[in-house]
């Protein structure tokens, strides 16, 4: 470097020509590119030729690509230890909350419900039916069982049926949890259709900082077709309920998610616009439930997955458009994935964990005290398959939920680090196993990767996000905001 003063060394003096490969995965991203991910999930896109040249050590020492690869810990120069320390630190951070075990606990206060949503898999026991409510004794035992686990942070979610149909049990569980969870941080969420909201319940929610999650499937016609409420307008009731919650509990106290039906798939833009119109800051474009899949052929499942992906891409595009117009709406699933792709935060979304989130991250306590490894596991039992039942609150102690059931075997068998098709997938660091989904759709909890709808859906969404980050600067700026 001729321009430097004499006693200074040029750039080439500081460049080590040798490099050593660090562990990474790769696969095809699209027509012209491959995507590579390092041990902790940091990614880089490159051509196949560059990839092969990199692995076979044919790249010149000062190739710009090598610098980018070094910056993302795909290689190490000389005897440098920093790349190894960085990877270890990132990996350690990502794993750091697994040792706390279960943090998400679902309580099914009742199976009774006043709606008849067409996609509901829960036994829709009539409003006034007897014998479908959780008893106080069961509630107490469930809370005690939950608190036997070591997690310093807990999320208690009320599901059903319609939880507000057995409100006393909601109150009981909240009170008992708060009384006994000394020093732990607890969040409460009620998943409700809001039809039975009244001032008393709102006051209780307000007193205990309880948040509300509800269903908004889209504009009025769509929502009412999906979620008929005998004699009444479910959409109106939902909007009224949202309004009341916001007034009493604050704007951010209510979140909504949608459940996709064949109808929904035709109108992603209208659904997104509806969420904007109702003032929501986030929308969860959830995939179609697999439970109807049990009776469907692999071909049909594949076709619906492609339809959902088209729906998702269009929905996401509409959301990004709203952002560009100045309305900050974020898509929840993309946010979860971007958090995995762009940060080293410990992951928490149940369906994207390896080892599985079943039991280890999430437990569901049914109205009768039966304990399931997830809400889907519970729904499966409603249909006669109790493969994911771990015990009962009246009989099973905490450790036995794991040690006396098949759970650990399931976790072991379904770790993405080891399953065929997952082990060397470039998206393994962002993904997880979903044994229940594969059990239901393929008859095998490990599943068959090439024909797995779970795999197809997640891979395509991840590909889409990475390509957006790489190719669309406008979208990338918005997506980066969602990662935290």
């Amino acid at each position: 470097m001729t321009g430097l003063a004499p006693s200074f060394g040029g750039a080439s003096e500081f460049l080590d020509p040798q490099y050593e490969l660090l562990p990474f995965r790769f696969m095809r991203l699209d027509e012209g590119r491959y995507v590579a991910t390092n041990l902790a999930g940091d990614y880089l896109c490159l051509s196949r030729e560059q990839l092969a040249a990199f692995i076979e050590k044919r790249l010149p020492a000062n190739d710009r690509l090598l610098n980018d690869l070094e910056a993302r810990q795909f290689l190490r120069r000389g005897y440098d230890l920093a790349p190894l320390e960085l990877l270890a630190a990132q990996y350690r951070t990502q794993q750091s909350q697994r040792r706390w075990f279960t943090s998400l606990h679902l309580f099914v206060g009742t199976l009774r419900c006043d709606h008849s949503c067409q996609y509901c898999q829960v036994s829709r026991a009539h409003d006034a039916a007897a014998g479908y409510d959780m008893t106080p004794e069961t509630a107490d035992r469930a809370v005690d069982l939950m608190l036997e686990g070591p997690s310093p942070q807990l999320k208690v979610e009320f599901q059903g049926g319609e939880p507000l149909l057995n409100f006393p049990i909601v109150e009981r569980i909240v009170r008992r949890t708060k009384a006994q969870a000394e020093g732990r941080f607890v969040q409460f969420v009620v998943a409700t259709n809001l039809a039975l909201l009244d001032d008393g319940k709102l006051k209780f929610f307000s007193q205990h900082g309880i948040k509300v999650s509800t269903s908004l499937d889209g504009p009025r016609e769509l929502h009412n077709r999906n979620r008929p409420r005998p004699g009444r307008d479910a959409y109106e009731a939902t909007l009224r309920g949202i309004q009341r919650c916001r007034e009493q509990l604050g704007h951010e106290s209510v979140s909504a998610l949608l459940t996709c039906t064949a109808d929904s798939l035709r109108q992603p833009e209208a659904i997104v616009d509806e969420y904007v119109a109702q003032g929501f800051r986030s929308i969860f474009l959830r995939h179609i439930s697999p439970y109807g899949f049990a009776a469907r052929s692999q071909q049909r499942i594949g076709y619906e997955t492609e339809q959902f992906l088209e729906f998702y891409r269009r929905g996401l595009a509409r959301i990004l458009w709203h952002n560009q117009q100045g309305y900050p709406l974020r898509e929840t699933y993309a946010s979860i994935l971007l958090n995995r792709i762009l940060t080293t935060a410990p992951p928490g979304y149940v369906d994207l964990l390896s080892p599985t989130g079943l039991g280890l991250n999430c437990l569901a306590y049914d109205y009768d005290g039966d304990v399931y490894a997830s809400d889907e596991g519970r729904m499966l039992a409603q249909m006669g398959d109790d493969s994911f039942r771990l015990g009962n609150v009246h009989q099973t102690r905490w450790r036995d939920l794991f040690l006396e059931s098949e759970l650990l075997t399931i976790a072991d068998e379904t770790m993405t680090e080891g399953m065929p098709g997952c082990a060397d997938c470039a998206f393994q660091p962002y993904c997880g196993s979903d044994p229940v989904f594969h059990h239901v759709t393929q008859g095998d909890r490990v599943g068959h990767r090439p024909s797995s709808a779970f795999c197809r859906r997640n891979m395509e969404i991840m590909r889409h996000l990475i390509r957006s980050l790489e190719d669309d600067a406008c979208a990338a700026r918005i997506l980066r905001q969602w990662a935290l």
Partner: protein
Amino acid sequence: MRSPDSATMGPMILAGRAKFAGADRTSLAMIDDEALSRRAPQGQRGQLRRDQELTLTVPHGERTATVVLPEEFRYLGPGDIVRISPAEQFVRVLYRRTSPHNVLFFTENCNSRCLMCSQPPRDALDEHLIEDILAIIPWMDEATPALGITGGEPTLRHGKLAEVLATAKAHLPRTSIHLLSNGRMFVYPQFAAQLAAVGHPDFMIGVPLYGDTSATHDFIVQAKGAFDQTIRGLMNLGAADVPVEIRIVIHRQSLPRLTSLCRFIARNLSFAGQIVLMGLEPTGYARSNWSELWIDPASYQDELGRAVEILEAGGLTARLYNHPLCLVPDHLRHIAARSISDWKKIFLAPCASCSRRRECCGFFASAAMRHSLAVQPL
């Protein structure tokens, strides 16, 4: 390492020639005042007289010594601390009670040799600097808002750093301490742990990082292995919960990987309290290597915007130092600090009609002839 970019009101710490009578050895003295609490021992308090000549009378063993100070020292006041060296006929001001940011120099030695170093290191035997610092900290006013520790590279005196920190904690519990260091010595975990163990309530280390690859960073600091050590040092400091800030000086050698570096920081070093993007000070080695370093800030506005966006999306706090407001994109002006000390700050001709002069950091005095072509009033 010397980084005189913290805002200081009032004249600089000066050293100057003095005339001595009756003094035969080096000593430290605090300028006394009846109203102040007597933190310095009797035998080290001096009386300042501002007649035609500026004189300082200092106890000297059994005698009294008289020092005639240079005129530039007329600003000295009660509570200020000086070092008088009769052998070299020199007086140095070590501490000014009225300054919002005093700087303690640990050493002029450094184990790096940055291409743009504004205060080139000297190979001096200067252990006495630390001894002086340890002696005078107890004399300082408890209301001192902040003390900077710099050099050269302060961690070369690694044996004494914790002691200085502990002394400051004991005698100046409300004074924040800001250490500037290249961070390399913290590759030893014990060193980071030792500093953390002092438990100082308001201590932060500013560490520069110039690239996200060893070749880039090592080249800029002219030391092989520096990047590896600095990264590991930062991680050890993070693990020990020592507050850290990262500084990036922007010039032609660091600009190409600036955005990438910010991405690296957001992913790997998110425990940093703030990230400071700094403009070049055209003095010292920066002047020697000017042709390889200088780039007009007006031409890197886009990169600056992208760098800040990536840092903020990663949850980090970004600041701009040494970037005059007219050379910064409008939406980033609120994070630009008035970082140039008053005593070396100048404004240029176009600044006369600028409406935002008062909020602007201005220019380095050394930049009078070496500055952007795009300077304009706002």
